[in-house]
Each structure stands twice: as structure tokens, then as C-alpha cells.
């Protein structure tokens, strides 16, 4: 039980990390962005490429920061991947979303993002192939916290947890304490009025894409680090991320992180409550339960 | 007190720690045009929201025509003959102006699934009658030329007029108007008032929140003033005009 809860929080951490960026995008651009999943994949693959590059060029970087499996090269690669993904996100916005945004309702955006996701995912398949890849063959070993009951944790996951919490705090402060954050929220509510109030839409949108893009790259990379990397990761990882975002309440970074934990814990507890075959349904059942009690998500605001 | 169509007792509403309406007890005389005035934030709209079922009161009761209706839903109240307009207009933006009106009448046969599917003739008949009535109301609120226009694309004042028209479509017995004249051109306001008085003569009861003092003073009787969630004053327009507290809190200078 304790282990299951702990597992939930730890696996939930990585979902939280993904959800932070998504909640921002969904809040600001007011549409469920399926291509966000592919941003995760772009980030993870970009890390793969740069990781290979750096560890080849500068072999010293290939040391892992014990007890993590994260190496210097990968850490560096991740930073660059965050940039690459941020920029990709902006480019995708320029090419597709911006134009649709100007003259259609958000649903068109949702399905445009679905189309974009198909394209990106399959371009990745064409470039990298279908098969699973890893940053490092090394298997992260769990540390035993206690033998009775048996409680195990992996340092990588603790690291991700801390990172998610730090990012959550940082982003929350940005949104609630800085005028830039106000601007983001203002654009989310009423773009025209935001313009009247002196906010330059394009700047804010670009900024949000860059933030969300880089967060997704970080989430994608760390997810691939703790699991594996294949062209479907975006797709596989996206569902829990969406679920976390929504159960937490769109637009709330606290909610996103809490939602991540809820989804993580739900899938951990699923096996205790239901036969394993039902595992995929469990997080959704919990979400349904939460939403029945709080229709706008845990921290969401009632529109209007 | 059988001439009271609406009876409010100890009506209270809190928003968090803030008490927006604080134990308001009132009765609205059947067939009156009651004016409700008071400073901004006095709780007038909140009071309307509670009476009309849009907000649940924290405590207190509302009786409509002698029947306790506290906590009833807005839709149920509307069907019992209580209509209201919104201070900040809420048109159905992607529906045409006339559809906004046609929506309102209760007991439409075509509003049930079997009716819509299988009672074509009766539905069409009813539609025709309603359409005529809607057209008439549109003419009266000067929106007839915009009948097929999307309601989201009319001017701010026109939206207020649409609000009024929509409420009238339901043939209510009591109608709560939240600042019907704000943003409406004075010439048109005058016409509206004529119409309201005519409807009133035919028995419709009006409760009107309004900041336009000419309007209130000339046409409302009685006048009730709220301030900080409480009833500050109740009386005739004449009395209101000279009430020192009101002058200070609300009117600012002798009107």
C-alpha cells in the first residue's frame, strides 16, 4: 500500500511535468492540443541526437551523476532539446495554428493539432524507425528504503519529482506575480481586451509556446530516460498527461501537478482494486469521480 | 397579504466572507412597477439572482404568489411566470435575433422530442403564431431590421433591448428588469416606458433596477433602496427624492 502510494507519486511526478506545459497551452490557446504529445517526442528524440553527439565529442560528459542515470551529456542535450522543441513549437504555430486561430473556433484547432500530430509522429518514424531506443542501457536500480514492508525508490524518479515541484513553483509564481503572467492569463480570457490593455498577442503566444515546448522536451526526455524512447511515446504518455491537466483544472499549475499525482496513484492503486487487465481504465474512473464532485477540475475556474 | 406577488423574507447571500445581501425582507405588490435602487455593489443584482433562481440564497425564503419557491431552479421559476433580464446582456450569440426571442415562450410542443419528430403540423402552427408575436416585439424594441442577424453581432444597446424583448416573449406575470435603460438611447427609453406601463395596466408586475433617476422617479411606485445588502428605504418616489440618507449614499446631489 505504502509502496503503491509512493510509486504513484513518483510515476505521477513525470506526468505532472508533462502536464505543466500542457495546462499552460490549453489555458492560453483554449484548445486541447494533441500535437503537444509530439512535442514530447520531438524533445526526447532531439535529446537522443544531441546526447549521441556530446558523448561522442566530449567523452567525459558520458559520466552519470550518481545515483542518477542522467549523464552530463544527456543533461546538456536536454537543454538544447528544450530550445529546439520550443522553436519547433513556434514554427508549428506559425505554419498552422496561427492561421486557424484567426478565423475558427477552438475545435478546428483541436483537429488541426490532431493532423499535425499524425504528421510529426510519422516523420519521426521515417527518420528514426519504429524500434525502441534508450539513452543508456544501464538499468536504474532502486534503493531499498525499508525491507518490511518492502519500499523501493529510484533516484531518477525522485529527481523528476523535485524538478516537477520546482517548475511548478516557478511557473506558478510567474503566472500570479509577474505582469507577464497576468498577460498570459488575460490573453487566455479575452484576447481583444488584452490587446487593448497593451499586450502584444504574438509575443505572448510565442513565449508560451517556447515555455510549453521546452517543458515538454524536458518531460519527454526524462520520461524516455526512465522508460524507453519510441515514436509512440508522445501518444502513450499524452493520455495521462491530458487526464492530469484536466482533473487538476485547465490553467492551474498546482492543479496540473496534483493531477499528475492523482493519475499516478490511480494507476498504482488500480492493481489493488481491480484485476490488472483493467489498469488503463482506473485513472479515468478516478477522474470521473473527481469531476463529478468538481466539474471544473480541482483548481479550475468556472468560465464566466 | 394577498396582494403581494413576491414575498422575500430574510434573504441573505454570502460570497465567501462577504455578505452581499443581508437579510432582505420585502414584498412586491401585485400589479406594481417597483423600482429598486441603490449604490453600486449594494446587492441589487444578487437579490434578483436569488429571486429568479440563478443563485441559491444562503438563507431566507422567497415566495411567489404565496407559494414558497426558495431554491427552485431558474427554469422552473420562469415556467411559473417569473422572467428576468440580465444587467450584462447574455444573448445567444450564434443564434439569430429572432431565434433568441422564439426560444422564450414556454410550453412549446416542438420542444419535446416526440413533439418535434411527429407533430409537425401543430408545431408549425405554433411557430407561426410565435413568429408573429416575435416580429411584433422586435418592432417594438426597434430590432425588426436585425431579425435574422446573429445576436452576437449587434450593438451593446441593442443587446439590452434584445434582453427585454426575450423576457417579454414569455408572457410572464412578474418580470425583473436589471437596468433596462442603461445604454439605451433616451428616445427609445421613452418608448419602452410607454410599453412597460401599458403591460403593467394589463396586469404584469415589474421590478426594475435602474440608475436613471428620471425613469425611477416618474414611473416607479414604490421605490425600494438597498445599500450594503440591506433595505435602506421603502416608500414613494417623492419620499425617495428627499430622503437624506439616499441623497448621501446614492444620488449624490439633489436630483
Amino acid at each position, binding site marked *: 500500500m505504502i509502496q503503491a502510494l509512493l510509486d504513484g507519486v513518483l510515476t505521477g511526478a513525470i506526468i505532472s511535468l508533462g502536464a505543466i506545459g500542457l495546462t499552460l497551452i*490549453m489555458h492560453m490557446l483554449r484548445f*486541447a492540443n494533441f500535437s503537444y504529445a509530439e512535442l514530447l517526442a520531438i524533445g526526447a528524440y532531439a535529446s537522443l541526437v544531441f546526447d549521441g553527439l556530446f558523448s561522442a565529442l566530449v567523452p567525459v560528459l558520458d559520466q552519470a551523476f550518481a545515483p542518477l542515470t542522467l549523464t552530463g551529456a544527456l543533461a546538456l542535450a536536454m537543454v538544447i532539446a528544450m530550445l529546439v522543441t520550443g522553436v519547433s513549437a513556434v514554427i508549428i504555430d506559425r505554419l*498552422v495554428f496561427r*492561421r*486557424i486561430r484567426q478565423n*475558427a473556433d477552438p*475545435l*478546428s484547432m483541436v*483537429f*488541426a493539432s*490532431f*493532423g*499535425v500530430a*499524425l*504528421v510529426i*509522429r510519422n516523420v519521426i518514424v*521515417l527518420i528514426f524507425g519504429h524500434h525502441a531506443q534508450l539513452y543508456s542501457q544501464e538499468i536504474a536500480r532502486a534503493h531499498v528504503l525499508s525491507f518490511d514492508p518492502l519500499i523501493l525508490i529510484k533516484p531518477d524518479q525522485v529527481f523528476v519529482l523535485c524538478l516537477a515541484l520546482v517548475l511548478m513553483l516557478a511557473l506558478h509564481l510567474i503566472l500570479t506575480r509577474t505582469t507577464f503572467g497576468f498577460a498570459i492569463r488575460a490573453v487566455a480570457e479575452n484576447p481583444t481586451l488584452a490587446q487593448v490593455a497593451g499586450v502584444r498577442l504574438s509575443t505572448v503566444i510565442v513565449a508560451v509556446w517556447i515555455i510549453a515546448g521546452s517543458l515538454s522536451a524536458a518531460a519527454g526526455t526524462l520520461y524516455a530516460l526512465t522508460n524507453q524512447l519510441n515514436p509512440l511515446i508522445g501518444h502513450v504518455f499524452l493520455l495521462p498527461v491530458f*487526464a492530469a491537466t*484536466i*482533473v487538476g483544472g485547465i490553467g492551474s499549475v498546482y492543479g496540473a501537478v496534483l493531477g499528475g499525482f492523482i493519475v499516478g496513484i490511480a494507476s498504482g492503486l488500480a492493481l489493488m482494486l481491480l484485476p490488472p*487487465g*483493467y489498469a*488503463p*481504465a482506473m*485513472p*479515468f*474512473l478516478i*477522474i*470521473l469521480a473527481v*469531476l*463529478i464532485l468538481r*466539474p*471544473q477540475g480541482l483548481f479550475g475556474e468556472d468560465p464566466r | 397579504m394577498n396582494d403581494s406577488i413576491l414575498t422575500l423574507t430574510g434573504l441573505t447571500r454570502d460570497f465567501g466572507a462577504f455578505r452581499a445581501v443581508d437579510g432582505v425582507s420585502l414584498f412586491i405588490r401585485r400589479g406594481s412597477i417597483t423600482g429598486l435602487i441603490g449604490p453600486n455593489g449594494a446587492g441589487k443584482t444578487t437579490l434578483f439572482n436569488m429571486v429568479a*433562481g*440563478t443563485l441559491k440564497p444562503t438563507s431566507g425564503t422567497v415566495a411567489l404568489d404565496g407559494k414558497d419557491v426558495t431554491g427552485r431552479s*431558474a*427554469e422552473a421559476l*420562469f415556467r411559473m411566470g417569473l422572467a428576468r433580464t440580465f444587467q450584462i446582456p*447574455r444573448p*445567444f*450569440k*450564434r*443564434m*439569430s435575433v429572432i*431565434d433568441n426571442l422564439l*426560444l422564450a415562450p414556454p410550453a412549446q410542443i*416542438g*420542444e419535446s*422530442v416526440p413533439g*418535434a*419528430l411527429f407533430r409537425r403540423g401543430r*408545431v408549425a402552427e405554433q411557430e407561426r403564431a410565435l413568429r408573429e408575436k416575435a416580429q411584433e416585439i422586435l418592432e417594438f424594441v426597434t430590432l425588426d*431590421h*436585425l431579425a*435574422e*442577424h*446573429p445576436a452576437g*453581432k449587434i450593438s451593446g444597446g441593442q443587446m439590452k433591448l434584445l434582453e427585454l424583448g*426575450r423576457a417579454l416573449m*414569455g408572457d410572464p406575470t412578474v418580470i425583473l428588469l436589471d437596468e433596462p435603460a442603461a445604454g439605451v438611447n433616451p428616445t427609445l427609453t421613452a418608448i419602452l416606458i410607454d410599453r412597460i406601463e401599458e403591460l403593467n395596466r394589463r396586469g404584469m408586475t415589474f421590478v426594475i433596477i435602474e440608475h436613471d433617476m428620471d425613469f425611477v422617479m416618474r414611473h416607479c411606485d414604490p421605490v425600494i433602496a438597498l445599500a450594503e445588502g440591506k433595505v435602506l428605504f421603502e416608500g414613494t418616489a417623492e419620499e425617495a427624492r428627499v430622503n437624506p440618507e439616499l441623497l448621501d449614499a446614492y444620488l449624490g446631489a439633489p436630483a
Partner: protein
Amino acid sequence: MIGLVSYLAFFLTMAGIMAIITLGLNLQWGYTGLFNGGIVAFFGAGAYGTMILGSGAEPDQFGGFDLPWLVAITGGVLFAAALAWVVGVLTLRLKHDYLAISTFGVAVALESLVRNSQWLTGGARGLRGFPRPFEDLVGDTFTYGLVFLAIVLVVLALVWWGIERLVHSPFGRALRAIREDETAARALGKNPARLRLWSLVIGSAIMGAGGGLYVSYTAFISPQDLLPVLTFQVWAMLIVGGAGNNRGAVLGAVLIWGVWTLSGFALTRLAPDSMQLDAGSIQYILIGTLIVTMLLWRPEGLLPERISQEPTKTADKAALEAKQ
């Protein structure tokens, strides 16, 4: 030639089934604003319902009622409607993405259920069907293809007729009103809970009919048929075709289904041999690009909703002239 006709009949059969489902969604989204993310659940409920009622007995397997086709499919539709009713009652207060993720969850849960309940649904092995309706009367497969197409078209026409009646009646008007502004609709005496429930249930029953028709044709259903991609396809059909317009919905269904399948056909014809293995991925890229292009070209859909009887512009002009 016969082959072409036969394939065309098949293509239209599938597109017709998709169009039926899309019409159901149009009632829910286009006219009521319900973001149903679990279309496949209702499709599946209809399909499994039809299958369980219509197929013959098998060892260790619930069902085997062997009911006549029409009864079975009606049962499937009712089953989908019942599921929708339960889902509706639970999720009535949810909106937008919140409703979408909940209904999506319902679909995942249903998939889990059928995948794991061997006794009821055959588990991952799926359920075997029953002889296709009227097949024994027709005999040859080519003619049967046309007969089945006719069945689908009749259902499509019925659904179309029903929905058109509904949405062009005061009922439809009330649906659109609650889509726009629930608070205001309530203040005008409309009961959003009732209306949304009706819309959800009717739309889902229609989706269930699509599922029932589909399994009547394939004579087989398995959890593989309950994957979310169907939900996405149907949504893409509605959005590309134009939400709030039934002609748009049907056009979108035919178009997207065409893109989805014909792109594969075209690739096997046109792409060089060296690319055949990647054709699957390339096909997805094509599909994605086409959806995006269509949305870029006509973001509001090919046949968007008409708000007034006359197009806005002429109404404006008339208004202007009237004023001057």
C-alpha cells in the same frame, strides 16, 4: 468494372456508416455543444449489443440468443442509449474538455471491460457474428454488397430525416441555446439537464446504430474495434465537414473516410517499390496534411453552420437599405 462497382458499394457502405455516426455527433456537438470524447464507446455498445443478441450459442459464453437481425440491432441501439443515459446522468454538469476526458474515460473503461470479460464479450478474442441480414435471400456477394449498401442508406436517410426534424424545431433551438449560454437558457425556462441528456442519448443511440450496422457487415467484433482512433476519425469528419450542418457532416464523413483509405490505395499504385514499406507512415503523413490543409483552407468546415435563414451578409445589406 464489376470489381469497381463492388468496391464503390463497399466504400459507400463504410462511409455511410461513418456518416451515420457523424450525424449522431453533429446532434451532440454541432447543435448542443456536447464534447463527446467517447464516440467509440457508444459505437461499441451498439456493436456488442447487436452481436450478443443476434449471434448463436457458444460454449462458456453468455448470450446466444439468436434473435432476428432487426431485433438484435434495435437492442444494440437501446443498449447504446442506455449507456449514454447513465453517462449523461453522471456527467451532466461537465463541459468542454472536462466532458471530453470523462467520456473518453468511459470509452477506455468499456474497452477494458470487453477485453477482460471473457464470459460476456469473448475478451480479446472478440465475438463471432451471425449471418448477415438477408444474405441467404440474395446469394451472390456482388448483389449482396449493393443490398447492404441500400440498408445503410435507408438508415442514414432515417437518421438524417430525424435529426433535421429535431434541429429545425423548437427542440433544436433550445439545444443551440444551451450550447451558447446555459445560465441565460435557464432564465428562459429551458432545462439544460433534460435537453443535454436527450441530445446525448439520441446522438449516442445513432452511434450505436452505426456500430450495429458495422458488425452486421463484418460478422465479428473485438476490442480492437474499440480503439480511440474511431472517435478521432468521426470528429475530424464533423469538423472538416462543418459542425452544425448535417450536409457538412455527411460530406465530411465521405471525404475523410476517402482520404483515410484511398490514400493507402493511391500509395500502393504510385509510390516506388522502395517506399512501399514506409507507405503506412507516409499515408498517415498524407492524412494529417490533408486534414490540416482542409482546416487551413476552410477553418469553419466545408459547409459551416448557417445562423440565420439568409446569409449574414445579405441580411446586413437589407438592414442597411431599410435604414436609408
